[in-house]
């Protein structure tokens, strides 16, 4: 089970009164995994198995609730090393976690904050990360400054560089640029990895690409190979899942060079859209 699903279940549990949470007996082999990831603690349910809690180093980050900026900084400092990654890989994972959780803290308007967990998969040599919140969702946030009539339209805008719900102004506010999700999608896109966003009824999934030499970043997420839905059961908040395959993680600085070019082009195109044409008679 992808960590993003565990994060969803745990986030949902925080919105429900303890006495209303019932857990059917689980036969699945993954039960010890749920225990280790801390799912039963979030559900407030006693697991009916006893497992030896191994040290988590090298394998996973259990479900963690992060509500404040300082908690996030502490989480990055203390938890990312548990994944025992090489320096360059740790940099990428730390970057993703920081930007995604800060998005929740700043935009989601929920006292429950962000629920995050991550798992290392040896077979694919990848880290899978899931972050969920039960806040106002992307459409509400984007609609503060930009028109988006559906959840999927709002997701599309949120994934474009320089679009933020905090202002219509190019360049954002002094604290927000509207670049976080574009950077994360770019990291996943360049590494040909999995990336999903689910908010309200909208769902966007970046599909894995086959290996090519050319590094292409699109400012419009709908120009990437993707699938999308706008009729899913309503999720009150936002969910993001990312997989990073470690043996194909590109040098971060190479990725940033590509982001720089795409970002500038996107701003120029947006400015051009506002140009008026001279009139000739």
């Amino acid at each position, binding site marked *: 089970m992808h960590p993003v699903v565990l994060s969803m279940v745990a986030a949902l549990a925080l919105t429900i009164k303890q006495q209303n949470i019932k857990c059917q007996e689980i036969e699945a082999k993954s039960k010890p995994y749920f225990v280790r990831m801390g799912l039963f603690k979030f559900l407030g349910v006693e697991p009916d198995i006893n497992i030896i809690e191994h040290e988590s180093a090298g394998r996973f980050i259990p479900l963690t609730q992060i509500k404040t*900026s*300082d908690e*996030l*900084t502490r989480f*990055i*400092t203390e938890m990312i090393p548990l994944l025992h990654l090489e*320096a360059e890989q740790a*940099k990428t994972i*730390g*970057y993703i976690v*920081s*930007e995604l959780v*800060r998005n929740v803290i700043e935009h989601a308007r929920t006292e429950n904050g962000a629920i995050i967990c991550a798992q290392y998969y040896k077979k694919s040599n990848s880290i899978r990360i899931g972050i969920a919140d039960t806040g106002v969702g992307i459409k509400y946030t984007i609609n503060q400054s930009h028109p988006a009539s559906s959840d999927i339209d709002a997701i599309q805008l949120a994934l474009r*560089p*320089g679009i933020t719900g905090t202002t219509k*102004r*190019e*360049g*954002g506010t*002094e*604290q*927000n*640029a509207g*670049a*976080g999700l574009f*950077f994360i999608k770019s990291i996943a896109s360049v590494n040909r990895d999995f990336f999903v966003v689910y908010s309200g009824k909208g769902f966007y999934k970046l599909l894995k690409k086959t290996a090519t030499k050319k590094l292409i970043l699109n400012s419009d997420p709908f120009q990437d190979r993707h699938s999308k839905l706008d009729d899913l059961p309503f999720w009150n908040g936002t969910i993001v899942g990312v997989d990073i395959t470690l043996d194909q993680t590109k040098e*971060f*600085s190479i990725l*940033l*060079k590509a*982001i*720089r070019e795409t*970002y*500038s082009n996107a*701003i*120029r195109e947006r*400015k051009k859209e506002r140009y008026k044409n001279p009139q000739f008679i």
Partner: protein
Amino acid sequence: MSQIEILIFERTGDFAENKDVARDIRIKEIIPALNKKEKVILNFEKVGAATQSFIHALISDLFRKYGNDILDRVIFKSCNETITEIIYIVADYMQEGLGD
């Protein structure tokens, strides 16, 4: 022109990602120094990585307040390749957006 040097590592450690810290540096140290006509050196020695959000919170507002002349008055020191690229990205999009 006198100058001040701000050691980012002392405020952020190895990973500069906390935007609140960036805002504090900007408001409490960079802007007062610029208002006193001082040159500001942002020293990233020992900082291994920074997020775009951190760099944005640190310098974007300076472009709005002082225009792109700010790049003559704020100097970036000892940046690794990753941090250099992020500073370029923020400087680019803030200059593209000036006048909006």
